[in-house]
């Protein structure tokens, strides 16, 4: 348990794509605005983004804490999605995996992290009906937080529960319905201001160095930012990502922590189905507390996505695929038996020759020695180099083609894997790639999660781990 309530480590995850043009008719005049939304790849969901956010910060979560996955887009209705995240992170079985639902779940998960009882991922994939006025104002992201005091300590918190018909969706429906936002803005602004003032009073502060406001209602967000004297840094990120649902307070807080100096104070206000306010003092260890790249760096690295591809990825445009059977659904017992391989990319290292066999097996693929003591070795945080590559033009994925590579892992091991977040034609022999957790396909209502490879950051030198993995 942390000595002081606060945040020990944090990470944000933004998918690789940005959508900024939703014209169905490309000859029509462009919409003004410069607004963009963050778009998860067709192979991403709340679970995969949670793994990507948590994988660099949460491995040491102690037994007794809860692993929370807060989302409004859980890939399963009744099965606990956080269980998949737990398995992929290789957490102690004594850590309880738990899903939190509803739009306020992000702020609530953060609250539980700050109280020292949980490690949390806030992850959401948000889709409006094509042409909806807020189509570019919703986005996809994840953020992860681990309790402790390195990044920031909690000075005060306050909460306010309001029953409000704001955004809602029935089971089986794809898009949120939204009540007139003029009405909900008034309620949320009142709740937000009251909650923020109570938290500041409790912290004995009149002002803070940084105000961060997240709200499901953009009018409320704008009004609260103005009233509380924010710099607009939060609004700038939001204009590039859209409101990222449950992840949004986490994403904006991560950005504030990226930019903040030790000793500064931050007010985080989330005004969604009521309000939650947190007053934080930035810790001396804030720079070291970040896992993965900054929010700004991730924004800068994104690729533009065309509207047609976006619609196809989201299942909003039914495109004729190849005459090919669906990829097979995985079966429960083999998934369970090989969880180390499937969820953590663990091969086996031979006791006799030291080489790595993938998938792991009882007998070494290199020297043929049968070793009962063959040690698992995780390849997920290592860079792999492409040995050969092909482009599958008959893919069942929602793309005209996907690249498939065979790649050798630095330090030993070979992977046959789908390439992702890269144009298939840009993948070449010798390219450095890093494992990323994705959903390969969904068949017979079973999501098939496994690791793909994406281009490594340009500076990845041979033998260098690209992350602080175990």
């Amino acid at each position: 348990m942390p000595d002081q309530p606060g945040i020990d480590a944090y990470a944000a995850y933004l998918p690789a794509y940005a959508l900024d043009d939703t014209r169905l008719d490309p000859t029509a005049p462009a919409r003004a605005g410069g607004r963009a939304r963050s778009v998860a790849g067709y192979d991403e969901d709340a679970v995969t983004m949670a793994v990507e956010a948590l994988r660099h910060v949460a491995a040491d979560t102690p037994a007794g804490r809860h692993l929370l996955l807060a989302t409004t887009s859980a890939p399963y209705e009744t099965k606990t999605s956080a269980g998949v995240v737990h398995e992929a992170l290789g957490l102690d079985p004594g850590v309880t995996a738990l899903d939190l639902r509803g739009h306020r779940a992000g702020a609530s998960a953060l609250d539980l992290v700050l109280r020292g009882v949980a490690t949390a991922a806030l992850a959401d994939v948000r889709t409006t009906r094509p042409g909806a006025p807020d189509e570019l104002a919703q986005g996809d992201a994840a953020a992860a937080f681990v309790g402790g005091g390195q990044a920031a300590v909690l000075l005060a918190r306050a909460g306010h529960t309001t029953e409000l018909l704001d955004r809602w969706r029935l089971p089986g429906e794809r898009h949120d319905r939204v009540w007139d936002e003029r009405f909900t803005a008034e309620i949320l602004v009142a709740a937000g201001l009251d909650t923020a003032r109570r938290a500041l009073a409790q912290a004995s502060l009149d002002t803070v160095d940084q105000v961060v406001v997240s709200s499901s209602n953009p009018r409320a967000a704008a009004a609260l930012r103005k009233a509380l004297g924010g710099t607009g840094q939060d609004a700038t990120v939001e204009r590039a990502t859209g409101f990222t649902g449950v992840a949004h307070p986490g994403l904006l807080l991560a950005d504030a922590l990226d930019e903040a100096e030790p000793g500064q104070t931050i007010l985080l206000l989330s005004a969604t189905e009521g309000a939650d306010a947190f007053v934080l003092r930035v810790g001396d260890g804030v720079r070291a507390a970040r896992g993965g790249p900054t929010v700004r760096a991730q924004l800068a690295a994104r690729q533009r996505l065309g509207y047609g591809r976006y619609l196809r990825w989201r299942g909003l445009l039914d495109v004729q695929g190849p005459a090919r059977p669906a990829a097979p659904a995985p079966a429960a017992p083999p998934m369970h038996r090989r969880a180390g391989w499937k969820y953590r990319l663990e091969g086996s290292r031979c006791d006799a020759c030291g080489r790595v066999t993938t998938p792991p097996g009882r007998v070494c693929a290199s020297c043929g020695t049968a070793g009962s003591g063959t040690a698992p070795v995780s390849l997920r945080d290592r860079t792999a180099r492409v040995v050969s590559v092909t482009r599958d033009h008959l893919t069942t994925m929602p793309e005209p083609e996907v690249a498939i590579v065979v790649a050798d892992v630095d330090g030993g091991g070979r992977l046959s894997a789908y390439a992702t977040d890269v144009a298939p034609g840009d993948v070449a022999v010798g390219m450095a790639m890093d494992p990323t957790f994705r959903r390969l396909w969904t068949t017979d209502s079973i999501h098939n999660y496994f690791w793909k490879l994406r281009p490594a950051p340009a500076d990845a030198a041979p033998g260098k781990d690209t992350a602080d993995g175990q």
Partner: protein
Amino acid sequence: MASRRTTHDVAIVAMGCTPFRDHWNSSADDLLVDAVQECVGSLPDVTLGDVDAFWVGTQGSGLSGQTLARPLRLTGKPVTRVENYCATGSEALRNAAFAVASGAYDMVMATGVEKLKDSSYSGLSAVFPPADGTDVDWTAPAGFSLLAPAYQAAYGIDERQMRAAMTRVAVKNHANGARNDRAQFRRAVTAETVERSPRIAGQLGVMDCSGVSDGAAAAILVRAEDAHRYTDKPVYLRGMSFVAGSGAGLAADGYDFTTFPEVVTAAREAYEQAGVTDPATQISLAEVHDCFTPTEVVLMEDLGFSARGKAWRDILDGRYDADGALPVNTDGGLKSFGHPIGATGLRMMFECFTQLRGEAGPRQVPDARLAVAQNLGGQPGSCVAFVAVLGNER
């Protein structure tokens, strides 16, 4: 020694092979009956009842020996169904050969069949056991297309040169198939047709891929000393080897996708049994597994026909053309025949058998004495490989 020639030599005395087609009006049963009847019918003094034991190879068109026993209404006979990926047809012949060589039977039959066109899909689709979902959902062309970029990188061959060699393989094999009534595709194609075909995987277009067809084939095998009791022109099995790869090429680093190590091993053993010391000059013709054009490029090196890194050049120089120094896939290959999996290995044998007996008509290779049949399955890095050397002298 990894494998040796059988104690008793084995000869093929009769063969049958259906045309490979879209056989909309024939079932796997019908195709087997056609192939077996042609095979038995070619020996005037032999009836099906004289055959002591049977093997039937099929990947997915039937289970158990009843795949053959039922359509032929065989009574009281042992029939074994075998499966070994795309080398299934060869596997039927290999096991049948061992059975006569052992002395357990005097006359045996190897058959193979595949009925692919009852599916609405154009490619091969196998049913695999339940799994953990971590395997790439490879198409066959995607798996084999990995050869091309790796081969180019290893030997410094540019895209244009590789494309030209692959195109030449397709053009050559279709030209051969145009002279073969049993082929599925009996029309020559131009380089332009090959190169402008729709992309399937990597550098491969549709015309770099073998077709999909239905077919069956059959062979009667006896011990060599008995062969002349049935025919004046037996074809002798001079050497034969089969390797099931460990899959290490996909499971560990090291393998570079420029060769099929399983084929290299199988070829070495088969050549040794056959007394072949220089395949490039001693072999009269070869039937090889041209499932995709780069496969044939690499196989020319694995079989010892071309030096490493030189096959693409030899192919472009016409060395493997019908009138070249070492004609390859004189019947048209998988490119012209399609690939009914259980039948393909025996179809290759059928062409070797026909050529070595001097019965190949317009396709006849002059003075054909030794032929290679090479059949493989799986994908580069993880495959099964069969190589046989056949001769018209014992």
